[in-house]
């Protein structure tokens, strides 16, 4: 295994060579100046004088120069490379972010600037391509809406027995479009770095449940909220609402008819949705949240996409989506707000 090249090792090796060559050159110079030849080194006096000359003019200057040079060199390299190591740590710390990441070159040595700038230009191009991709997805979703509205309204006027099934298909397409737009929106918010604000999870839950309760009642199900004290987190209200909406819709699908889906808030920035279905194992949850990455949209109603979106929203908030099989709950865990009032 070959070790990657190291500047410090290379400097040490160079200094050793310079030292060796310098010593040899000095020996020759001294030899010529004092006409010392190998033949009369046998003479005891001459030998002692030669040693004296050598240590005074060769070894001493070498030691005086080479050692501080080696130390200074090491220090210069270490401190010169320090901003690069710091920058790497900073980039690693932003592992959750996929957009807008740049190498901060303010403290970079001039020698490393060109490289870092080139990397930043590539990152900029990737961001641009991703933004274009998202805008394209949003455009498609947008363009689909008006024809889909026409289709839906025309279907409303049909009395044919198949019309109901087709209305269901339109509803599924609509849901998929909504989710596509939501995904694009999360990334756009993230890119625009819209400032998060304090949000009361109980209040958001109340709004979402109020919106979904008529739909739940239509399916013979009930929704309930258990929120006693306000639970504040720092985030984007609309995005948190969208995440919860996805979880509740999921729970409504998983619960038997006549069941109840309960949303509760918990201290420390927790929002949980409990249903009367079989619960979801950590393994199943992981599979469902990975769905969109494998471009697997096989689920008929976009349920998998829904959980993937929830996971994305939570990641953007620095939180997590967790499951508890025993409690039959899916939990949104936010990082607790700095101050609870």
């Amino acid at each position, binding site marked *: 295994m070959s070790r990657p090249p190291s500047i410090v090792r290379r400097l040490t090796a160079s200094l050793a060579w310079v030292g060796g060559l310098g010593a040899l050159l000095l020996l020759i110079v001294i030899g010529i100046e004092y006409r010392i030849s190998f033949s009369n080194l046998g003479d005891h006096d001459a030998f002692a004088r030669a040693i004296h000359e050598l240590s005074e003019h060769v070894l001493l200057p070498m030691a005086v120069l080479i050692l501080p040079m080696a130390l200074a060199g090491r220090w210069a390299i270490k401190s010169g490379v320090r901003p690069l190591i710091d920058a790497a740590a900073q980039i690693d710390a932003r592992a959750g972010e996929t957009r807008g990441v740049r190498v901060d070159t303010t403290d970079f040595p001039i020698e490393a600037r060109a490289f870092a700038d080139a990397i930043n230009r590539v990152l900029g191009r990737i961001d641009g391509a991703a933004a274009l991709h998202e805008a394209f997805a949003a455009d498609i979703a947008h363009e689909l*809406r008006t024809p889909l*509205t026409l289709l839906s309204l025309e279907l*409303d006027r049909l009395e044919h027995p198949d019309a109901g099934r087709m209305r269901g298909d339109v509803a599924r397409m609509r849901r998929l479009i909504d989710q596509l737009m939501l995904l694009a*929106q999360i990334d756009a918010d993230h890119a625009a770095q819209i400032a998060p604000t304090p949000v009361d999870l109980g209040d958001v839950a109340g709004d979402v449940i109020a919106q979904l309760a008529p739909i739940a009642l239509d399916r013979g199900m009930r929704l309930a909220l258990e929120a006693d004290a306000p639970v504040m987190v720092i985030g984007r209200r609309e995005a948190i609402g969208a995440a919860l909406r996805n979880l509740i819709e999921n729970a409504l699908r998983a619960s038997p008819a006549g069941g109840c889906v309960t949303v509760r808030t918990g201290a420390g920035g927790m929002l949980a949705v409990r249903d009367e279905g079989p619960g979801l194992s950590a393994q199943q949850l992981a599979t469902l949240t990975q769905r969109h990455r494998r471009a697997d949209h096989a689920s008929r109603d976009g349920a998998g996409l829904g959980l993937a979106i929830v996971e994305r929203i939570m990641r953007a908030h620095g939180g997590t989506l967790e499951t508890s099989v025993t409690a039959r709950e899916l939990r949104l865990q936010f990082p607790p707000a700095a101050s609870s009032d």
Partner: protein
Amino acid sequence: MARVLIIEDNERLAGLIADGLGAQGHVCDAVHTLAAAEDALAGTLFDGIVLDLGLPDGDGVDWMRAQHGPRPPILVLTARDALEDRIRGLDAGADDYLPKPFAMSELAARLRALLRRPGGRQDAVLALGNLAFDPASQRVTVAGTTLELTRREAALIELLLRRAGQVVRRAVIENSLYTFDEAVTPNAVEATISRLRRKLEEAGAALELHTIRGVGYMARARGA
């Protein structure tokens, strides 16, 4: 019934909406530009407006912002549905917001709720199923027979009827019933609802009062 102005540039869509609302008993005028909308509003008194945001001669949000003085309630339709657009629309004075695509029943329900808001020209009798409520006299009739209600019960049913089919948050109810009592506890609201429920059931009202635990209450026609 109500006269509604539809501002939507897709002529087929405008026609379908006009037909659908017409079937609900509304009189609709459809225009396809903001300029035509100005002309229509100058000549006729409308009870409500259905507005599409992206119009060929301007942006619906800017147009709403430019409206001064009293105007009919506006229900905004949009194909954008970006969260920010929604907030922008409501800030600019839209009274409600419906993303495309929507079902006719959805649009009709939202519009009905808008027209029922107090202060509108449509401040007439509120009806749901076989129940009717006259806001002026605070009188409730079920299938033509008057129902004896306390002032507080009448206020509560008015609140729920004005948003029939939608959940009314508990805090909204507590705030608007505040004038009748010094402190309105959640239990007091629940007790009033129970009494109302019993009275409605005894009178044979085709109306249900649903409790959404922890959130609020909703009135719906039975079987709806």
